[in-house]
């Protein structure tokens, strides 16, 4: 009985970490099924939705549920769960060790320092502005780097402090719009506000979420795919409205 409980908990936790950090539904189900099989329960039934996971063992007449409330992107965690699952499959670690190490992955994994995130958001914004629009005057480059960095840090800190998802995207977009607006009055020479905004919002926009929504739907997850799409549409709305509020002043 004890063993069954540990197995159920570990399987659910692995699935939850994957789902909360950006994996597709099919990958979550696949990994959980592997873990259950390797733990000695090949007949385990796994049911994964975007908002919750169920594992049940028909033979033991038992099942457990775990609700998923938070969804973000942290591929380091996905990688570590994958590595642990492989080691478990290779009998490097037993079920108890697997469960403890999963707990550690869920608590803390290496992250990049905030300064790296700032540089990265500029490195995403500026090259994409140039690649998409071809505009690269000095005023554009500097404003885009500033707007991209400050927009992302606003998003990051609002998320950190209050963890209200769509508000953080809205605030980030608002800051980007404001900086672009200020730049228009300060910057010398030729200046392309549309190009700057399209570059600066790239760290925030839900492009990957939209694509994942379609992929999930195509693999037969007819509830989770559209649910992801709704989440993506809401965040596109938050960003679009944030920018539109400032663009009335042009």
């Amino acid at each position, binding site marked *: 009985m004890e063993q069954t409980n540990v197995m159920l908990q570990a399987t659910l936790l692995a699935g939850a970490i994957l789902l909360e950090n950006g994996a597709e539904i099919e990958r979550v189900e696949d990994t959980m099924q592997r873990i259950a099989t390797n733990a000695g329960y090949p007949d385990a039934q796994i049911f994964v939705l975007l908002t919750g996971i169920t594992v049940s063992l028909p033979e033991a007449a038992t099942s457990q549920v775990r609700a998923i409330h938070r969804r973000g992107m942290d591929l380091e965690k996905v*990688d570590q769960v994958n590595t642990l699952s492989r080691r478990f499959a290779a009998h490097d670690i037993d079920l108890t060790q697997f469960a403890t190490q999963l707990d550690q992955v869920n608590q803390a994994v290496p992250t990049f320092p905030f300064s790296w*995130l700032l540089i*990265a958001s*500029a490195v995403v914004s500026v090259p994409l502005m140039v690649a998409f629009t071809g505009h690269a005057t000095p005023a554009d480059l500097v404003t885009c780097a500033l707007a991209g960095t400050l927009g992302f840090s606003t998003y990051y800190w609002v998320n950190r402090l209050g963890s209200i998802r769509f508000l953080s995207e809205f605030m980030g977009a608002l800051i980007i719009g404001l900086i672009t607006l200020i730049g228009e009055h300060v910057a010398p020479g030729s200046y392309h506000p549309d190009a700057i905004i399209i570059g600066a919002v790239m760290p925030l926009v839900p*492009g990957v979420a939209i*694509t994942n929504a379609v992929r999930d739907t195509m693999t037969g997850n007819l509830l989770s795919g559209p649910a992801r799409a709704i989440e993506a549409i809401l965040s596109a709305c938050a960003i*679009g409205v944030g920018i539109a509020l400032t663009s009335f002043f042009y």
Partner: protein
Amino acid sequence: MGHWILTTGILQLVLAYFATAGFGVLLNIPRRALNLSGWVGAAGWLTYEFLYFLLPTSINVKLAVGNLIAAVVIGVASGLAAHYKHMPMIIFNIPSLVPLVPGGQSYRVVRNLVTGHPHVASEYLAQVVIIAGVIAIGFLIAEFINRVTWRLIH
């Protein structure tokens, strides 16, 4: 064409490399995967830009075909990279999509709706649907190619 590769091509390759690696940092991918995922993204974007330059068709067809082939390239390249580094595929294919995915278009849809340009908004909406659908199909094709090569090798 040679001239295009030397001027636009190399510039776009470098831009996409940096954008992908930067997005990788934002998604917190493992550090040892940063460089490789940058190159996967660069390969995908170069494919797209090259097809966009080459195809003599309307913009929507260019978008569809370009993104489809680029997604196949990214899918196959991330399959190879994942196998080489012993990491899950999404570590390479998610950051690599950043230049291609319709994030910019999706925000433009809402912005144009709010500022009162529904016609522009519907054009961008069509692009969002085309690109997202085509990338998903591209990944399916890449998955198929990966499985077939895997079978042939073993």
